[in-house]
């Protein structure tokens, strides 16, 4: 029982790191990015190549996954996404679905369609046993890293100058621009950082979520649930939504293996009908 809770929290934390970038970009530019999972996949494969093939230590592989994915994100943002911000939602959806299809086929071509595993160092394998609860060391590490990241993100957004610019741009893009904030640059930075986070999440999660070319399609709905249920106006909303989703998913798979996904989709639809702006959103949102 508590093990399920523990696994659920680890899973939820992971989902949060994966989806945090999406929630910010969506809130900031009102841009529906269905290709967010592709960046997570990029991070995962990057780690696989670095750690398994080139023999880079795991502890160095994770930050490298972040850096590489952030760089990819920045390039894509400047080269392609920039042209689509002002378009209709339909165009954005088509564009990002196209990117997803391309990434799926491209990764299949380069890496093959089989599932990939990151070699985890010996020290992280196995379990702790605390008060009769089996806690896998690796999941504990995930909770630790993701927890630190969450706190860091929250501090960065609420305390730093960049964070206040970001919040201003989310609240009202036009006024922020009028005050001399370079919204485009803020957005490019955020996009790159969010992609990097997704890449880090993909690298960390390769072990738990599984990594194969269909990753962006498989988890797209989960990221969207986190964002839609959590709302896009803060970090706390998506965070709580991720934890809830993680616990519900793990518990669902454990207690009702055949109905698990069904329950989650049902809850999502009910929440969206009940509060279209998200469970934890402020009432007045654009």
């Amino acid at each position, binding site marked *: 029982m508590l093990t399920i809770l523990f696994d659920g929290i680890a899973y939820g934390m992971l989902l949060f790191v994966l989806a945090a970038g999406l929630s910010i970009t969506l809130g900031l530019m009102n841009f529906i990015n269905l290709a967010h999972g592709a960046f997570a996949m990029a991070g995962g494969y990057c780690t696989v190549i670095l750690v398994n093939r080139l023999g880079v230590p795991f502890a160095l592989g994770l930050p490298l996954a972040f850096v590489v994915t952030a760089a990819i994100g920045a390039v894509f943002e400047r080269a392609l996404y920039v042209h689509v911000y002002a*378009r209709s939602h339909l165009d954005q959806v088509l564009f990002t679905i196209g990117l997803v*299809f391309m990434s799926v*086929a491209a990764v299949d071509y380069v890496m093959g369609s089989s599932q990939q595993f990151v070699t985890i160092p010996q020290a992280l394998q196995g379990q702790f046993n605390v008060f009769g609860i089996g806690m896998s060391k690796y999941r504990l590490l995930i909770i630790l890293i993701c927890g630190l990241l969450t706190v860091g993100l929250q501090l960065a957004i609420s305390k730093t100058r960049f964070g206040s610019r970001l919040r201003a741009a989310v609240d009202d893009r036009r006024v922020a621009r009028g005050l001399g904030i370079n919204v485009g640059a803020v957005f490019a930075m955020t996009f790159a950082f969010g992609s990097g986070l997704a890449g880090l999440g993909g690298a960390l999660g390769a072990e738990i979520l599984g990594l194969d070319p269909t990753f962006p399609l498989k988890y797209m709905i989960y990221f969207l649930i986190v964002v839609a249920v959590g709302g896009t106006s803060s970090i706390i909303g998506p965070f709580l939504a991720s934890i809830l989703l993680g616990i519900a998913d793990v518990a669902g798979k454990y207690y009702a293996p*055949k109905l698990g996904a*069904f329950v989650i*989709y049902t809850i999502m639809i009910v929440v969206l*009908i009940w509060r279209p702006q998200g469970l934890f959103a402020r009432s007045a949102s654009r």
Partner: protein
Amino acid sequence: MTEAGKDVATYLARRARWSPFEIAFWVLAFATIWLFPGKYLILTETAILGLFALSLDLILGYAGIISLGHAAFFGLAGYTAGLLAKYELINEPVLALLVSGLAAAALGFVTSFLVLRGSDLTRLMVTLGVALMLGELANRFSNFTGGADGLQGVSIAPIFGVFRFDMFGHNGYVYCLVILFICFLIARRMVYSPFGLSLRSLKGNPLRASAIGIPVNRRLIAIYTVSGGFAGIAGALLTQTTAFCSLDVFSFERSADLLLVLIIGGTGYLYGGLIGAVIYKFLQDWIASLTPQYWQFWIGFALVVIVLIGRERVEGWSAAARASIYRLGKGLGARSAPDGAAPKGH
């Protein structure tokens, strides 16, 4: 009738006249029965895809609702048709088709209330969620649906007790084409009616549309229901012509591909879905013969390029092509419909 009412009536009547281009399109469509006897399988798929895209166009092109889960209706009716035939509840295919379509329309009616609420993102999520939910349900009740193995052992009785579904797919194709044509006629009648005009106006600006007395929500519910029914008929046709139904009828890829089909052909006019389906199937066949495994890459590539070039521009080209074909038809002295004088509907 008031003066304005008469104006609208004459305007609609003028627009609704059959142009030579349309007649040529359908003559050509039915001529394929004799022109390509060896290609019935892909032709059947194209006709079904065309009907499916037509149904999406009704809500996307005419009412402006973005859906990522149109496969929900397709799949529901596909399974309904399959189960009806498998357990011999309704043997007559045409009747089973109608029942399946009605089932999908009922789903459309129920889910339309969910779609009315919220922003584009909420709509995307809800439509996608409904399709995934149904897919999970079909997977869950595998004793009925066969789960991941698909619904097997379906045998479809002859149409009207006369026309058997032969192994070459000839009768199946004619059947699909006739159904497609009937559905097209209904859709055409609908979009050229005052009802269709009101849909266009509320797509343009829901607030103003309601200010001039159009019941926005009721119109959206109606068109969503009809669209669901058409998508359902397409799904039921697929099950009936292949005598098989699998979980991928609900898949996200199916809904996403459908968007591409519609975008290729152009949204907001009825032939968009049909022309898109022809081009899409042709491209898919061609690319799949070049790179069997990675054709999805080029599908994605097409989407990205179309959006980057600008959908309006692509649609502008196809509109220009249509116009020149139209002028050609007029030049040949066929019965012509003056179109330039009418105020544009959008």
